[in-house]
């Protein structure tokens, strides 16, 4: 057995806010292989890569390069040791030419100035050497995404990278560009480079990777020869629940369709399809769950429902109680009786510096009962805030406390309290329990079920299998911007089966998905 080119032993990373991103992870990289790291979002892949690239230091554990123990304290340390990273968000300066981006930080000089001819020559030489054609004099802002990625790869190679880390490189590429990337990566491998390929797309992993390390909830679930494992096995290891939660659900009367989405299509500026022919309905007294690995169109779907689509072209219809709301503002949509729990409570869900009571009335301070003449009705607001804090068991010093001081779970309870207490016709809940403790999560689930009992329609988008399987009445699975499966009894669906759909290994035919969505 050859010695590992890079080895990580017992890596644990705890962030200052208490989130454990990696727990006792072992990872070993052989020279000249393409090694995939697969796992769902939040499984700890990105943190592990940040540690390899010196952007984060591990709380515990050791890193060895060619058997020698190293500490990587900055990206520069990693670059010096021959590690290069291609970030998901490109680290390029748009107004610079390709050559300028290539040499930034290591500019060839002539006197006091930059030797541009030399920069162009260096770019051309590297491009030729690795057979990655780029135009050194083109401006980066004019390049396609695929070309930009090439420049990023070349940047790392020019700096002497022998180990290349690619963070979900295909997420932004068209299928043709992906194929081209794979050809290039295979070539690099033949020239002796070692590649770490982060992805959750199993087909791609199977196509070009030699070995695969699977991660789940911050742990490594093992390393396999890609040829020896089936997609089903990988999917089973990636997707799973640690604890099964159960809820008693009463049946709620069908209140008729509240939200209907018809033939919704969304394309980005380059014409890449983000959503394709999305059709479904959510009825009163029903929770419809949307499962899927992140980045498969859920964000765009939520944006389409909440007036958040920007810089894209869309067609189709999104109706709330029969009124088309596609391209309406969120305020107009909310006035149709829609409530929305956004995914990111720090940036969208709450104003961190404001008090709990200010946050609680932020969606209804315009309403008559909250006002008295020109001013807000302080005593009414205080009473409402006090009762909501009580009802939702928000642990705080009082409604006047700054919301940013609360723990994630309590902050989220405030957001849920605000959205649930208006008696909405439709609640759109996006990852409502992400990053909150189990107690708060169960509390939030109960509130969603109460809302359903009261006749509201609930659309739940979540990556948490527990909540999506247990509290949904109908489950839709999204993959690559399409609804690929639909289940009427989600709690009876096994995680293995769900995993196959989420990772695109299986898909129901149109009749099956159509049947279930028509039932709803």
């Amino acid at each position, binding site marked *: 057995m050859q010695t590992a080119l890079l080895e990580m032993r017992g890596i644990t990373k705890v962030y200052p806010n208490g989130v454990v991103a990696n727990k006792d992870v072992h990872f070993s990289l052989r020279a000249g292989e393409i090694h995939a790291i697969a796992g769902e979002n939040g499984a700890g892949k990105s943190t592990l890569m940040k540690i390899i690239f010196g952007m984060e230091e591990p709380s515990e554990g050791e890193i060895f390069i060619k058997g020698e123990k190293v500490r990587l304290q900055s990206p*520069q340390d990693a670059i010096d040791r021959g590690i290069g990273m291609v970030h998901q*968000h490109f*680290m390029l300066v*748009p107004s*610079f030419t390709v050559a*300028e981006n290539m040499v*930034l*930080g290591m*500019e060839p000089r002539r006197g006091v100035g930059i030797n541009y001819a030399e920069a162009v020559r260096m770019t051309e030489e590297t491009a030729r050497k690795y057979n990655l054609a780029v135009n050194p004099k083109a401006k980066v802002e004019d390049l396609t995404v695929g070309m930009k990625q090439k420049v990023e790869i070349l940047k790392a190679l020019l700096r002497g990278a022998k180990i290349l880390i690619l963070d979900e490189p295909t997420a932004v590429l068209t299928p043709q560009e992906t194929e081209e990337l794979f050809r290039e990566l295979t070539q690099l491998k033949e020239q002796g480079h070692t590649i770490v390929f982060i992805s959750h797309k199993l087909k791609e992993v199977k196509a070009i990777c030699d070995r695969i390390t699977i991660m789940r909830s911050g742990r490594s679930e093992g390393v396999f020869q890609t040829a020896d494992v089936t997609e089903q096995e990988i999917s089973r290891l990636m997707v799973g629940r640690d604890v099964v939660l159960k809820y008693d659900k009463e049946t709620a009367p069908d209140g008729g369709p509240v939200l209907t989405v018809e033939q919704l299509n969304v394309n980005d500026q380059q014409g890449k399809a983000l959503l394709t022919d999305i059709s479904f309905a959510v009825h009163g007294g029903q929770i419809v769950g949307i499962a899927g690995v992140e980045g498969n169109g859920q964000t765009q779907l939520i944006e389409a429902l909440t007036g958040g689509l920007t810089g894209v072209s869309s067609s189709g219809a999104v109706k709330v109680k029969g009124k088309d709301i596609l391209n309406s503002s969120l305020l107009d949509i909310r006035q149709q009786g829609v409530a929305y729990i956004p995914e990111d409570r720090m940036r969208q869900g709450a104003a961190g510096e404001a008090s709990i009571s200010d946050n609680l009335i932020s969606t209804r301070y315009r309403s008559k009962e909250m006002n008295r003449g020109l001013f807000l009705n302080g005593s009414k607001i205080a009473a409402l805030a006090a009762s909501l804090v009580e009802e939702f068991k928000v642990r705080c010093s009082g409604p006047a406390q700054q919301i940013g001081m609360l723990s994630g779970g309590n902050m989220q309870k405030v957001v849920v309290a605000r959205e649930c207490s208006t008696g909405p016709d439709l609640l759109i809940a996006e990852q409502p329990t992400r990053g909150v403790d189990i107690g708060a999560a169960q509390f939030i689930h109960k509130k969603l079920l109460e809302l359903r009992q009261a006749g509201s329609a609930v659309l739940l988008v979540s990556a948490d299998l527990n909540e999506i399987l247990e509290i949904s009445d109908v489950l839709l699975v999204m993959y690559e911007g399409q609804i690929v499966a639909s289940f009427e009894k989600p709690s009876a669906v096994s995680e293995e089966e769900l995993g196959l759909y989420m990772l695109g290994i299986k898909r129901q035919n149109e009749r099956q998905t159509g049947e279930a969505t028509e039932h709803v």
Partner: protein
Amino acid sequence: MNSLLNVILTTDFAFSVLRVTTPILFAALGALISNRAGIINIGMEGIMLVSALAGVIVSSYSGSAWVGLLGAVLAGTLIAGILAFFTLQFKTHIILGGVAINMFASGGTVFLLYLLSGDKGSSTSLPSKVLPSIDIPVLKNIPVLGPILSGHHILTYLSIVAVFVVYYLLNRTPLGLRIRSVGENPHAAQSVGVSVVKIQYMALLLSGFFAGLGGAYMSMGYLSLFTRDMVAGRGWIAIAAESMGRSTTVGTALTSLLFGAADALSNALQVLKIPAELIATLPYVATVIGLVIYAVSETRKKNRKVKSPVVK
């Protein structure tokens, strides 16, 4: 109307345009460098004022105008260094830091002036020196061009040279490339080992250096003494010139010249029967109009950028 043309269409007027453009141009070049590094130095006004006083004090105590110039430039760089220290090290908001510098300069210079000369209004009692003006051989004998371009203050010529120097610095040197990368995408700079803080330090120090030259010109060229608040908004006009010049060296130089022309015009029009107060507002009105034109064209450009891909 005729009398207006009589005032403007003279070599004297053209000469005075260059004369009053100098301090604006220096400060605008300084603002340009810090802005390109993504850090807006609104303390230009205060830095110029401190430098103007430093030039007077150092030259009167050393007896040399050149040592005075050195003192002025060092003072400007030092004040910018203090601003950089607070914003980059202690993360003070750059706008608050800049406001503090401006207020400190306005009060502090009067205080120091009073300590040294016993006068709160001007430095008449200090024997400060003035930098020389230069007649350019050959050129000075050419009609029209000679009287306009020759015989200027040495710093006026230096300010023109500075335009080329800054252009070269920003567009042709490694430091310039890094300054621009830090301003446009700091993450990209960081990912290749360029220290964002270090580059922003350099940029702020350079902006202080150029503001220092502008300040020195005010008290050792434009006037031959220091008077309280003598910069009179030129630091602000410079920032406006920089942004109206779209953060390019050439654009900044041209808009500085435009504001200089407005300034010169307000001086020249004082011989006519228009209220002096009204005329004195000219450069500032030009600034506001300039910024509005700039903002409108920027917005249009942005809208076009957003819309065009969807149309396709």
